């Protein structure tokens, strides 16, 4: 796997498309366990990301990812905004200076991203948040990386949040009643990684 600036742009475009067409679905997931804005917020944020980076000129992947981070930070809001913002900022910082990115450096970037999110959200695996998607996904960026694996892992992880009890975020107010509902943030993270897989596949 190798990621270039153009791949980042494609990745963001694909993510944005998925978020726009699943905006209502994400919103209804968030209505069940939260406040019903996750779809609206993510769709607004990634639309802005695409406006910002599509067609722009970046020297490095890190530069492109930094603009993604700043845009998410300032346009999403809610819990998802600072979390996704932090993730992309850490990823960008970790990849600083690199013209292109292989799975190894991408993996350590994702690890820093995850650590950043956990710190920002004071959260850990098993709390029914997007952390539960990011954490297993990172493990797929091995030497034997393949996009189908990534999608499969992300999807399984996302589906697993259904049976979890939320202890972080707005869904935690529901206690046991959060069980049986998908975590909205995990679903949006699934779209993100599904788009990444598609991007990488298309580029191979």
């Amino acid at each position, binding site marked *: 796997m190798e990621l270039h600036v153009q791949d980042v742009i494609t990745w963001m475009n694909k993510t944005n498309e998925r978020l726009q067409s699943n905006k209502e679905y994400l919103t209804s997931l968030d209505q069940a366990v*939260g*406040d019903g804005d996750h779809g609206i917020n993510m769709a607004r944020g990634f639309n802005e990301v695409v406006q910002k980076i599509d067609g722009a000129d970046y020297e490095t992947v890190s530069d492109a990812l930094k603009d993604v981070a700043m845009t998410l930070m300032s346009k999403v809001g809610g819990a998802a905004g*600072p979390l996704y913002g932090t993730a992309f900022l850490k990823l960008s910082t970790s990849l600083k200076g690199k013209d292109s990115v292989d799975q190894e450096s991408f993996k350590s970037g994702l690890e820093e991203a995850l650590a950043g999110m956990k710190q920002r959200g004071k959260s850990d695996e098993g709390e029914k948040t997007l952390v539960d998607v990011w954490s297993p996904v990172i493990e797929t960026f091995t030497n034997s990386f393949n996009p189908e694996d990534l999608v499969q892992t992300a999807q399984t992880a996302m589906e697993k949040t259904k049976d979890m009890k939320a*202890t972080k975020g*707005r869904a935690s*107010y529901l206690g046991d009643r959060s069980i049986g509902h998908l975590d909205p943030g995990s679903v949006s993270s699934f779209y993100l990684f599904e788009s990444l897989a598609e991007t990488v596949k298309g580029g191979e």
Partner: protein
Amino acid sequence: MKKIVNDPESVVQDMLDGLISAHPDSLQLLPETTVVVRKDAPITNKVSIVSGGGSGHEPAHAGYIGDGMLDAAVCGEMFTSPTPDQVFESIKAVDGGAGVFLVIKNYTGDVMNFEMAAELAEAEGIQVEKVIVNDDVAVEDSSFTTGRRGIAGTIFVHKIAGAKAAAGGSIEEVKSVAEKVVANVRSMGMALTPCTVPAAGKPSFTLEENEMEIGTGIHGEPGIERKPIASASAIAEELTDKILEDIKFNSGDDVAVMINGMGATPEMELYILNKKVNQMLTDRGLTIHKTFVGDYMTSLEMAGCSITLLKLDDELKTLLDAESSAPAFRI
């Protein structure tokens, strides 16, 4: 969805434009933001108070800007915590050299966004302190959860921190009195109907024609129990009892009461609730220092109410009674 709006995507901006044109002498909107700031900001050597959160809770929070209360309100998208850059802009706009105090309601998003803004401000040498309001006893407070939510009790924090700052208190003193309010304020709400975020276009939940929900959050978060609609007195009793289980009042204690409407509840019903709450507190030997009845922390057009009790000592009484020019909380 029956709403008086233009584009559902621009409701927050449209509302803020209408707000500023209604209060052109006292309020301003920072350019290219959704931050409302008192017109005479910054006030040199006064600690400034900033609050905010998602929109849809009007008059919270911009209605509480005024002498003796808030200096700025950061208005997020509908029910969506504002972003760090917006909060940061508000901090820079109001800092008069004595530091900026943030009043944050305890929601993951609000806490993260305001904390990130505080980090940005501190990096620029602005002193920032904060308090996190968590008055909603409908939610369990344990170290394994995100803890209780911040709801209508937040208004008392605005008022008392604002009065302390107006009286010349230092940022440490403002923080300490705000923490005292948080330690002594408890609320609990209920809903008869849900509300609809304009861009979502459909209600956040549904309730049967004869059903109510106890413990609903101000963003339509599910509450703790659904049951047939009870009488006003039974509702008042259930909410008040839950609060009194959580915080101990002794005969002779002073208390401030807020009977808050969620948006679509007629004032008549709030006063009917107050009759019972007043009786219950008086029967326990409490002294009701002041009662506030009205729409203070709403949830769009949700029908329902919340009850807030604040235990008062002499300092809190003086600060609660101090003058305020905020349009939604004139004292």
